[in-house]
């Protein structure tokens, strides 16, 4: 059963530009769905429409079976964690947590144990009497999560909740939020612009651009099989190079590059023969000195530079008469003997090279 359904939802602020453009989305019960995209891609607007702070220009949003366009935010029973936590500064932590219960006219006797349980869940039981300003950023974040959960909402929305934390704390909180989600079986819609956050936490990731969902898939599918050039460029690192389709076969195609070289690629785009295509190739899929095997594309290149990152080395290689490829090489032993100017053999599985639509980031590519 779907917990949330967006049905042909559009939103425009000025009648000209659609911030959200005819969006359809189903979030399953108990699912952790991330909305990921650059700023201005419509993800936050979607969240705000779901919370009730923005109204859709057209279309309908359902919470379960219930259309909620005409339901006021306070009647939606949706928990929300805000970007800057929005903890009420004049109330103690315990009062903040009691607030949603108090406005629901729950008796004092019932409020106290619920607040206690929520604080224990985020391991802050000893800080109930503090004011938010007396807490660290990470503690405030936990209180915000606890407050959004204390009234047992049907759905929890999180609007870049970890944006203000430093990296270490952010990773720890990602884990904690995920743990709470698993334990309580919550449905979570999570907005972020941090792709590693989306990939590590989510069951499903929706990649937003230009008010449309570019791809809706599990994190590994998003990374392994991006369906268009925007997703390929947005998620992770990619070597992108363009060419012309000169032959289309069964799932594979042959692409002629600018210097005349021809490479095989997995056909993702439905462009016809003769059309331009953008090829994408993950840096970690390129091998130096590859084994001669069927289905491999082999070429030669010239090492431009080598960058030491720690757990891996980034080798910049010039191939196909001008393209600069990044090749990630695992740091297995100190030094690999590559020097700038050196000619090397490179290779990759033809299926790792994906022929996508020509223009990166174009709307309607999905």
């Amino acid at each position: 059963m779907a917990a949330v359904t967006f049905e042909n939802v559009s939103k425009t602020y000025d009648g000209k530009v659609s911030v959200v453009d005819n969006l359809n989305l189903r979030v399953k019960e108990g699912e952790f769905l991330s909305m990921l995209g650059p700023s201005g891609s419509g993800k936050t607007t979607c969240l705000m429409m779901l919370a009730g702070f923005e109204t859709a220009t057209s279309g309908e949003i359902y919470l379960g079976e219930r259309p909620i366009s005409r339901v006021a935010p306070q009647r939606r029973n949706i928990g929300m964690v805000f970007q800057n936590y929005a903890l009420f500064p004049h109330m103690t932590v315990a009062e903040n947590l009691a607030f949603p219960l108090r406005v629901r006219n729950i008796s004092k006797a019932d409020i106290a144990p619920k607040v206690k349980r929520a604080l224990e869940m985020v391991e802050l039981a000893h800080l109930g009497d503090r004011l938010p300003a007396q807490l660290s950023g990470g503690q405030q974040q936990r209180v915000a999560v606890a407050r959004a959960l204390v009234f047992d909402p049907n759905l929890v929305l999180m609007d870049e909740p970890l944006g203000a934390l430093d990296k270490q704390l952010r990773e720890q909180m990602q884990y904690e939020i995920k743990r709470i989600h698993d334990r309580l079986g919550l449905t979570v819609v999570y907005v972020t612009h941090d792709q590693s956050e989306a990939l590590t936490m989510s069951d499903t990731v929706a990649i937003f651009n230009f008010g449309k969902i570019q791809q809706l898939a599990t994190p590994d599918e998003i990374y392994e099989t991006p369906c268009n050039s925007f997703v390929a460029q947005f998620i992770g690192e990619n070597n992108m190079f363009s060419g012309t389709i000169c032959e289309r076969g069964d799932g594979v195609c042959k692409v002629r590059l600018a210097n005349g070289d021809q490479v095989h690629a997995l056909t993702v785009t439905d462009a016809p023969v003769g059309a331009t295509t953008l090829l994408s190739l993950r840096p970690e899929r390129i091998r130096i000195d590859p084994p001669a095997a069927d289905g491999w594309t082999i070429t030669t290149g010239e090492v431009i530079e080598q960058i030491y990152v720690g757990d891996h080395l980034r080798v910049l290689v010039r191939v196909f008469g001008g393209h600069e490829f990044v090749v990630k090489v695992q740091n297995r032993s100190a030094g690999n003997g590559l020097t700038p100017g050196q000619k090397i053999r490179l290779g990759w599985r033809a299926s790792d090279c994906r022929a996508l639509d020509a223009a990166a980031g174009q709307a309607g590519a999905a």
Partner: protein
Amino acid sequence: MMSGTIANVRPPAAQLDGAKRRQVLRQYRRSQRRDSLRALALVAPLCVFLAVMFGWPLATMLTRAVSNDDFGAVLHRTSASLAEWDGTGTPSERVYADFAADLRQARDEQTMGQVTSALNFEWTGARSLLMRTVRQLSSEPENGWKEKLIETAPDWGNPDLWILIKRLAQPYTSRHFLAALDLEQAADGSIQGVGPEKAIYVTLFWRTLWVSAAVAGLCLVLGYPLATLLARLPLKTSNLLMMLVLLPFWTSLLVRTTSWMVLLQDNGVINSMLVWLGLVSDGNRLSLIFNVTGTLIAMTHVLLPFMILPLYSVMKSIPPSYVRAALSLGASPVTAFWQVYLPQTIPGVLAGTLMVFVLAVGYYITPALVGGQSGQLISNIIAYHMQQSLNWGLAGALGSLLLVGVLLVYWLFNRLTGGQGLRMG
């Protein structure tokens, strides 16, 4: 690295041995001293200006409220010999002789006025009494001054008058403060209320307080919704509206007050409108001006920006996500306002209310112009004593009481804001 490890590494770096530490400390102090000297130099001009233009006049007025120098200086011989008098019966012959000598000198040096006016405030008929007495001073008496003076005017045989003179001759006096509180010192030294026909200041103080409180209240009621609106609107619109708030602020106070006269008088715009609409009969036009009503309306208008500005600056700093969070947690918009928004605007409410109240307490021009008789405030009577009756001592006392009142209110507000002081912007 774990934070515990970092903490263990740190102390050795921070610990310096004796000589080195003293040197570092000395360098630190020297660098601090340079900073504080520069800061002092920057505020020095303002401090000098404030001391000369504000601190000094204030101190002068405050000392005037208690000082009695003039009287005692003119009658210096008398006050010296009166010091030995125990206050029972009439003073000795020496006192009368010294008094005659003092008066003669005062007549020659034309400083009689200072004695006359001070005595006249307290002793009915003192002016003519002194005039008559001075005329008798030319010839030496046969049986001493005491007999001659009492012969001239029986008042000189009244111990109460001498008690009064003894009191007035002291360098400091409480009579101005007593007068400012509608009290007086009776001849026997006890403090009593003045007669109801002379009691005006306490009434005026109370009126000033309630009018100021009412103006502050009205400004809050009118200003709060407007400030909320301004804080929520997009910057472009709110800037335009803020301009409209500030425009009257930049207009001359006199012009604004005068335009209220045009609007509020019996044949003014508002009354004519009400009559025309049939809400008020022609014979029963509302008296909106030259009374307390006029003072309230005009002062509220003049002081409104002082409420809106601190409110606006506080509200602007409250992110809209608080109210959104309250709504998402299930609070109705009304609950969200009362329990989440309003408590956070309290610093602005207090700052605005205090500012309006304090300004209103000392307001002078507007009540003078539109207040009529019943709309006069304490500052108007202070101005009267400064400019018309020239009783600067009483003016100083009234002003000091006003100052103390304002400081008390300020202290109270500071307590209310939890000792954080005011947030004006």
